[in-house]
């Protein structure tokens, strides 16, 4: 890790305007939770776990935030032509990737975790939490890391990382995983939900992920390590564009 790179990346990712937009974005699940409480429906546990957290936050907000930060942290350096300045320094490529990853992870996890915690507390106000709050908080933080690592690798692989990432999240994870059960082993969303299940203690009717707890933790770890390794390897052999 390199403090200078971390500070630089933080300034790149968290411009004034973007931070405001992001906070508004994080506010949406909270508002929905408030509306839910006002309407006062039954089965708040099932709603908080399966609808709010699994579907809305982990299904949509987490990958979107990770997509923005994960691809921008390193990808914007290539797009803007500033990558030369950090690559022409005596810093191991591993340190560059890890520093950039750290910042994008913290930014993603920060926004989404805040939304998860506040929205879940509101949704389960006065109800037993049964590990839902802690479980999903943990899952969001872990899932943010896996997604960011994956998208960072994509961003050193292709200049259209954002589109590829979108296709992955919303076609592969969103549609294909639902149709073909075997694909669940290759879905970060399923890892994230599986990790939540290590803590969440509710009946399957309330929340039932498709991957076992241990499978999910192992696959998430492998995916992170592998994508970080691939990103570092790719960066080592990065060639400046011919035209640029």
């Amino acid at each position, binding site marked *: 890790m390199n403090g200078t790179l971390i500070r630089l990346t933080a300034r790149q990712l968290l411009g004034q305007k973007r931070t405001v937009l992001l906070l508004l*974005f994080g506010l*949406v699940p909270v508002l*929905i939770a408030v*509306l*839910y409480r*006002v*309407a006062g*429906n039954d089965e708040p546990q099932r*709603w908080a776990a399966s*609808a*709010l957290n699994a*579907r*809305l936050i982990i*299904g*949509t*907000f987490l990958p*979107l935030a990770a*997509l*923005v930060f994960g*691809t*921008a942290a390193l*990808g*914007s350096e290539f*797009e803007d032509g500033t990558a030369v300045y950090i690559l022409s320094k005596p810093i191991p490529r591993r340190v560059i990737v890890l520093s950039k990853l750290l910042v994008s992870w913290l930014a993603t996890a920060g926004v989404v975790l805040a939304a998860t915690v506040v929205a879940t507390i509101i949704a389960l106000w006065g109800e037993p939490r049964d590990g839902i709050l802690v479980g999903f908080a943990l899952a969001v933080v872990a899932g943010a890391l896996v997604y960011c690592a994956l998208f960072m690798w994509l961003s050193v692989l292709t200049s*259209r990382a*954002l*589109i590829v990432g*979108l*296709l992955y999240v*919303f*076609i592969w994870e969103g*549609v294909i995983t639902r149709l073909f059960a075997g694909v669940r082993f290759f879905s970060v969303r399923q890892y994230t939900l599986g990790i939540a299940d290590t803590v969440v203690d509710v009946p399957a009717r309330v929340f039932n992920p498709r991957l076992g707890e241990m499978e999910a933790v192992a696959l998430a770890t492998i995916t992170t390590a592998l994508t970080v390794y691939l990103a570092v390897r790719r960066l080592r052999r990065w060639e400046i564009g011919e035209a640029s």
Partner: protein
Amino acid sequence: MPPADQRTGSIYDLGYRRYDGLRLGRQHAVLSLYVYTLRGAFGIGRRASSKIIPIIITVIAFLPALIQLGVAAIVSDEVDIIRPENYFGFVQVPVALFCAAIAPEITGRDMRQRTLSLYFSRALERRDYALAKLAAFATALMVLTLAPQALLLVGNGLASKDLADYVGDNWKDMPRTIISGVGIAAAMGAVALAIAAQTSRRAYATIAVVAWFLVTWPISGILVAEVGGAGRAAALLSPFDFVYGATLWVFDVEPDQDSVQDLAEIPLWGYGAAVAAYAAAGTALVIRRFGRIAA
């Protein structure tokens, strides 16, 4: 050709020549920009890498039609035929992808590369530019919404035992299909372009368009199904939901049990009105944006 024995020769001046032919004016300019943009949306006339993504998305839009026709050709024609309104339910997804990937290119390219000043200094008004771009993008989306349906209609007709019978049975769906296809393209295209035109950075434009589709979708689902009450109006928030509601209205079909449209209890014509309102608002925003932008 002059006869070979004719002994006269001429040397032609190949220098710059004046042009005194036709000048077709504004309409022609708008039409040219429309065609150029439409070609650009599918990467025609551009490098191979600009074609990949629009082609993949277009292929996705055609997949169900191709599968259905394949099955009909190989197995039998007794398989269930995909209803047009169901096809629209599916095709919304590639349309949304196309919006996310291509809308930022439609005007963003001109903004990034500062080509706008060349357009606005020509026989073209700013409003013309906005409308030509919008029309081209909506047309590109119609390729996705309508062409697979046309293929399906023709293919099924040819595969059926009696073509005349088939056409007769399905005739009344034609205008409905066209109205739905145009409505989806207009509403989604106008709003997506209005969002994308706010920034010249491709990445942010893409994310903003995606956020419109994907953040409103679960919100609508959750507010309508799980929260209820006033939250049911959220069905008009998500493009997937209001567009599908409008399709149901056009085809005069009842929503499925427990679907968003069923639970929201909004009269189906309300979705039709929403489609019109979104299309109008998006168009107005695009015109406004290019009326003010510095060139």
